[in-house]
């Protein structure tokens, strides 16, 4: 579904050029859920922006569904690192934003209900808890019914209870909607809980240094299994060895 070949992305020009990604090649199968981990500033958000067509590759190619990515696509949705809600729009208007921009009809109320946001439709983001704001961000992307779901640290800076709840939510949504998902995270356990394969990136400029296979994702009570703990330990080991 997603194919990335020799992707290099740099920001700025001239002497102030910042190389964010250097020669990344990877692919994600249709319906697969993968995690991307790496240190801060290694280009994880940049990778998602490129997959979403928001910034063009400096070198290399990105293909989704066999087509070169040139500009944003309707079947790809991105959840921004901080949810990216517009504070002047209500919860409902924020959730509907993508649909409205694309001139599509659709009912987001069902999605809001699914995410436990029923009754808050007329509130503004400034009136919500951080966890609720993240869920509105998820609702906005989900409402587009995308084939590809790009998630940029949707659980960062949340308390562990809320974090776990949203992790469970994402797993449930993935099992229900069968989208192809790329989840960027800082959190090792989260990567193991949600990534069928885990892509480990080096510090900036980001390179793919290791791929950890983790096929047990989605099996019942995976989080409590010995297998899970072993995988977490293994991933931690990989991160240490790769110097990240």
């Amino acid at each position, binding site marked *: 579904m997603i194919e990335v070949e020799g992707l290099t992305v740099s920001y700025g020009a001239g002497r102030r050029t910042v190389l964010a990604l250097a020669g990344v090649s990877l692919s994600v199968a249709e319906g697969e859920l993968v995690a991307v981990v790496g240190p801060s500033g290694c280009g994880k958000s940049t990778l998602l*922006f490129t997959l*979403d067509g*928001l910034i063009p590759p400096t070198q290399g190619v990105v293909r989704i569904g066999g087509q070169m990515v040139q*500009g*944003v*696509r*309707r079947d790809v*949705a*991105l959840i*921004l*690192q*901080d949810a*990216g*809600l*517009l*504070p*002047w*729009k209500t919860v409902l208007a924020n959730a509907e*934003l*993508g649909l409205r*921009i*694309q001139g599509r009809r659709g009912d987001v109320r069902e999605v809001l209900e699914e995410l436990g946001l029923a009754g808050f439709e007329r509130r*503004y983001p*400034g*009136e919500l808890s951080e966890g609720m704001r993240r869920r509105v961000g998820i609702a906005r992307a989900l409402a*587009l019914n995308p084939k590809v779901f790009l998630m940029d640290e949707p659980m960062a800076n949340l308390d562990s209870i809320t974090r776990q709840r949203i992790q469970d939510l994402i797993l449930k949504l993935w099992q229900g909607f069968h989208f192809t998902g790329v989840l960027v995270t800082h959190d090792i356990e989260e990567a193991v809980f949600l990534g069928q394969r885990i892509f480990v990136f080096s510090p900036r400029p980001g390179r793919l240094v290791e791929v950890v296979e983790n096929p047990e994702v989605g099996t019942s009570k995976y989080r409590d299994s010995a297998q899970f703990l072993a995988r977490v330990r293994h991933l931690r080991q990989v991160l240490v060895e790769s110097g990240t």
Partner: protein
Amino acid sequence: MKRVVHYLVAALVVFLLWELVSVSLLAVRGRVILPGPVATIREGIQHVSELSSAFGASALRFSIALSIAFFLGLPAGLVLGFERGLYQVFSPLIYLTYPIPPVALLVFLYLAFGVGEAVKIVVVTCALFFQVLVAAQGAARGIPRTYVTAVRSAGASRWQLYRHVVVPATLPAVLTAARVSVGLGITMLYVVETKLGLVGGPKTGLGRFIEYYTFRAELSLAGVVGLSLLGLMFYALLELLERWLCRWKHLGGPGAP
């Protein structure tokens, strides 16, 4: 309602201070220098129709000037602030012309627009236009990237970007700037209604009223009160507009002002 009470209390305080100054001046100088509020209001009521038509003329001029300043200054400022390339080209031009007070160019404006109604409105419009323009430009430059990314990610066109992000994000700052500029606008209005009013053109407005009755101090002061009410009216109007259009800025909670 609470705000109305606040304004009434403030008006009362102003009147008391005014009376105090008026009485002390009388005591020190032995004659009436500044008429008191009661005498002023009495005179004002006696000439209420003349006063209110002057108020109406000034209010109309000010509304027209403010509307033009908004309709030209807001889009221009937003585009200049948001579109990187344009900003680099036009910002020196704006910062060079921005500090020129339009009254300094009065003679040229007078030659260009004649002595009638137009030039009065042009001067006030210029003053307000630059305030709106600069505020809009600054606010548009400061829009957080993530809002733009969020909307672009959904495939927004340039127009949708302005509609969903640029305009709502900058509106509070622009309306506040406009509100703060009301004082400047009223000053300009006063200037053109007096200095130019003598040269020719329609002899209307509060400035003209104040000047015409210079030697009837109570009446002249009634005109000044009218001018301050005019300013207050537009100030309150812009504040109401801001509260109504930017509700999201005025939510409760610990961070609320």
